[in-house]
């Protein structure tokens, strides 16, 4: 038979746990207050043990709710098995995922972009020119464009392949839900060289399009803009639908 916890023979009512529950509630409140309060103590927040400490407190609260409120501690072993074996499995996959994230971490996502972690770690990519300057006047840009064209847009092409293709596809045809087609003649943010330069440098707030000025020099951004512009009207096979307005020239 199962594991009796409280006398409950016949129609006798099980005795009440209310006082016990209120004590548990008080403990949970205090522990939560400590967890939050500790972050507001400048002398403490910043020491190495804060993260493990609030982690232990969370696990303690978890155990308290499961053990006392959910009554698992005094309950039948079959319940414990049913709940705790998948719980530990979940814990191990969690630890494995976190370890994998640490092991596979590479600065700049392996070369193509600056992640938030890189920024926090203070990495500055080799190509960064620092700061973002306003676009050159259109005629100066046109001259530089002609120059780049002679070189087959080699620099911009390389940047695009390493940095932009993840979202805009290798041939610029775009990827659903990631980045729009660069080879049609539609632009949401303008197709002139200056507009392209600005869009790439500043990114598009609220979309996946990052502000590349934080990781690329103005010259690299210009070269990327030239290459993007050279894709206009190529209409590669399988490219995404037109988004934005058509730009004639």
């Amino acid at each position, binding site marked *: *038979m*199962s594991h*009796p*916890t*409280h006398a*409950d*023979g*016949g*129609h006798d*009512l*099980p005795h009440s*746990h*209310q006082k016990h*529950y*209120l004590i548990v509630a008080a403990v*949970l*409140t205090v522990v*939560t207050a400590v*967890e*939050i309060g500790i*972050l507001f103590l400048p002398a403490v*927040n*910043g020491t190495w043990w804060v*993260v493990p400490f*609030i*982690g232990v407190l*969370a696990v303690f*609260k*978890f155990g308290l*709710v499961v053990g*006392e*409120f*959910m009554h698992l501690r005094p*309950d*039948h072993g*079959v*319940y414990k098995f*049913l*709940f705790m*074996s*998948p*719980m530990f*499995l*979940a*814990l191990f*996959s969690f630890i494995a*995922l*976190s370890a994998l*994230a640490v092991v596979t971490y590479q600065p700049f*996502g392996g070369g193509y*972009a*600056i*992640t*938030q*972690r890189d920024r926090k770690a203070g990495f500055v990519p080799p190509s960064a020119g620092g700061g973002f300057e306003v676009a050159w006047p259109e005629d100066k840009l046109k001259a530089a464009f002609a120059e780049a064209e002679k070189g087959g847009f080699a620099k911009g092409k390389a940047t695009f392949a390493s940095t932009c293709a993840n979202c805009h596809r290798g041939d610029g045809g775009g990827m659903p839900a990631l980045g729009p087609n660069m080879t049609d003649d539609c632009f949401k943010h303008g197709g002139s060289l200056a507009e392209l330069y600005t869009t790439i440098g500043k*990114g598009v707030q*609220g979309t*996946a*399009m990052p*502000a590349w000025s934080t990781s690329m020099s103005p010259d690299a951004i210009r070269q990327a803009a030239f290459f993007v512009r050279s894709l206009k009207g190529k209409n590669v096979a399988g490219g995404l639908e037109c988004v934005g307005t058509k730009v004639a020239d």
Partner: protein
Amino acid sequence: MSEAVAIAHDGHSHDGHGHDAGHGHDAGHGHHQLTENNFLGLPNIKLAMWAFLGSECMFFGSLIGTYFFYREMSLGGPMPEDIFDVNITSISTFLLLMSSVTMALAVDNARQRNFGKMRAFILATAAQGAAFVGFQIYEFSHFVAHGLKLSTSLFGSTFYTMTGFHGAHVSVGVIWLVMVALLATQGKLNKDKIAINVEVMGLYWHFVDIVWIIIFTFVYLLEFTR
């Protein structure tokens, strides 16, 4: 929906041990086996809930794990420390924590057959749960206004998926609680089976709370450590 109907039909004395002639078999509602004791002497409905909650551990474990896998790997968009508000989240966390207390008291009163108090505690639990969901709706719209959408960044995708599924669980729990309270008001609950059913509902509710304990600490508070 179906849970609430089941509540009206099934039930058993708590703790799954034994079992007395007066309990459990007098409903006349057909042959519902859910609250019957099985060969282990345990009510099936409670075993089923624990097994379900075990699978839910894996579900939320993967969502939280994925969030951590991609933590700080976003390329752009608002970052957690830009938009998290520890005050608001602490209030809603506290509400959810206290809703576990009222839930435990509801279960206790169901066992004591104080059905009036039980209903009051169930409604108090539902109210706190609803307030939590309200805070979450506020938080989400605040985040969207700051440029964090589901598709903005890895942070947006993993954060909304994880907390959104949790909020959906809380919402389901609130509906369940309200339906049981309504049925209790209408006198449609089988008084001999109510204790086990409220207990099982409580297991679900407490589980939703413990998931939040983990999310609150490891997703929110972590951003405020130096």
